[in-house]
């Protein structure tokens, strides 16, 4: 079996891992989650650079968190590590304090919080590097079809713009005009923009003549129904937000209204997609392997939530006093199950060639 998994399955898996990370500040569990994400990415990624970027971002978040804690916070009492010189600030900053004593307890507490955010980011980085965004774009619901095409146009057009930019700059240099400074930069960017606008009109003509963006016949009643369902869903979500936030409104209406409104809106989006008549080139299938990937992600989330039930307090490690973090077994078992996608016998396949819009741009030129 050589097929690559549906990108939606990878995103769901990563989001479930991230959800697990939001439920705990236990550094051991967070470390396990990080290990699982890194292991799966190492075995199955399709595009490499994204994960490294998110890894660095996670480290940056952790470092910023520690720095903030050391500079701005009023520390937890405990073992003083170092005393920074403190700076008096004007009263407009409401008694904010910079510097002062830094305790081991407050640094540990900050590192737990920072590690949680970093884990969250790195789980998303795993999704970015496991699932090809272009393929995810192809499985957008039909109601967003046109905008999906616009994004595809943008993504195949951006590299051409860079080429056009260097062409214009070379031409300016040959004419003996400067290409540096704000004015030179603007003067070489404008022809690129004008060129892009020209070719967008040519592209539109090419798309029109090939029936791109054509819609099927949808009855007026159905269109009205879809449109009003979208509006009702939006209104319900707005009302639910108000119910959740405002003082004094009955608390019970908030969440059901939110779920109901979102449900209506999602249904309307799916319904609206029937107006689009098109076929897919190499459609991504959704089979048993995809369900297995989602189930393994769900195991991690349920394991962490279950650990909170079985051993209350094991998910949040105390920083005052500093104690060794617990290792609750349901969470460990659940997170270990999330490794399953790495063991699936499927191999990543090179990305399917983008025929549609890329060739049209070529045809228009």
């Amino acid at each position, binding site marked *: 079996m050589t097929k690559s998994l549906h990108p939606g399955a990878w995103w769901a898996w990563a989001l479930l891992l991230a959800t697990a990370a939001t439920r705990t500040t236990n550094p051991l569990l967070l470390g396990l989650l990080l290990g699982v994400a890194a292991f799966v990415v190492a075995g199955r990624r399709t595009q490499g650079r994204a994960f490294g970027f998110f890894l660095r971002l996670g480290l940056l978040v952790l470092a910023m968190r520690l720095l903030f804690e050391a500079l701005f916070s009023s520390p937890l009492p405990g073992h003083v590590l170092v005393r920074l010189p403190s700076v008096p600030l004007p009263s407009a900053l409401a008694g904010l304090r910079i510097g002062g004593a830094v305790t081991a307890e407050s640094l540990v507490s900050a590192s737990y919080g920072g590690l949680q955010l970093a884990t969250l980011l790195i789980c998303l980085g795993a999704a970015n590097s496991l699932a090809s965004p272009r393929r995810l774009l192809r499985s957008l619901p039909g109601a967003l079809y046109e905008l999906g095409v616009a*994004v595809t146009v943008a993504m195949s057009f951006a590299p051409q713009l860079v080429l056009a930019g260097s062409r214009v700059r070379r031409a300016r240099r040959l004419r003996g005009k400067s290409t540096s400074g704000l004015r030179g930069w603007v003067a070489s960017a404008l022809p690129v923009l004008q060129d892009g606008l020209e070719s967008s009109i040519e592209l539109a003509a090419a798309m029109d003549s090939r029936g791109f963006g054509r819609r099927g016949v949808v009855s007026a009643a159905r269109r009205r129904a879809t449109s009003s369902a979208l509006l009702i869903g939006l209104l319900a979500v707005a009302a639910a937000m108000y119910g959740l936030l405002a003082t004094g409104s009955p608390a019970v209406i908030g969440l059901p209204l939110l779920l109901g409104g979102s449900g209506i809106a999602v249904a309307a989006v799916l319904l609206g997609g029937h107006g689009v008549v098109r076929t897919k080139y190499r459609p991504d299938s959704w089979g048993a392997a995809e369900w297995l990937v989602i189930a393994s992600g769900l195991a991690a989330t349920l394991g962490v939530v279950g650990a909170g039930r079985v051993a209350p307090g094991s998910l949040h490690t105390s920083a005052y006093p500093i104690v060794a973090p617990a290792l609750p077994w349901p969470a460990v078992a659940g997170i270990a199950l999330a490794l399953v996608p790495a063991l699936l016998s499927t191999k990543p396949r090179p990305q399917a060639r983008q025929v549609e819009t890329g060739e049209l741009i070529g045809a228009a030129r």
Partner: protein
Amino acid sequence: MSLAIASLVGIFAFAWPFLLRRPSSSGVAHSTDAPWIFLVVLPLLLIVVLAEISEGGIDAKAIALLGVLAACGAALRMLGGDVTGASPVFFLLMPAGRVLGRGFGFTLGTLTLFGSALLTGGVGPWLPFQMLAAGWTGLFAGCLPRATGRLEVLLLAAYGAVAGLVYGAITDLWFWPFSTTGLSPQISYVPGQSWLTNLHHFWAFYLTTSLGFDIPRAAANAALVLVAGRPVLSALRRAARKAAFDVVPEFAESR
């Protein structure tokens, strides 16, 4: 209409730290859940709004123009880099919203950030918030009063400066409750406090952390619009006239 409702929900999504105040026990529960609820709701909201905008069907010219302008924006974003905060993305958004209308400006703002995130592999929890904020930048550029010539460029430049600051402030707002829980109470979100207290805390946080990034952005927006605003506006007007969109093009103000 749908834009207005969605913007309302979006304002809730950004401003909940100031609005949320329920002294009962359920309020405490929600104040820890609220950020996660919005992280889930906001992508859904964007999908619904964009579906509603494209409900009547977008013609091929609008798709092509959206795609090309979003590509220009994404390329500008990569060129500028977000290191100093001075990112030239908005420079294209504002004239486009002004010339091609509010709905187009909103859609272009969201698609530009989405496309550039896909190109650089930077899809993260910040993306929906950035998309919404950039969409607003384009949307309100379409709502500016009528002006022509020099005045129009000045108007757009002033708008650019304000939009740069506001964009920075509201994109800070979404992670402010996350990044500061457990920090000194003077700059962090304190659940259950009055909105005025929290606003004061946020102001201190904003001053100490991100104003240094936002002032270069605002200045760069204004400077770029002043230098290149007029040719960009006229190039966009020319394209709109050639493509003959649904709006009747105005020939009177060509300069």
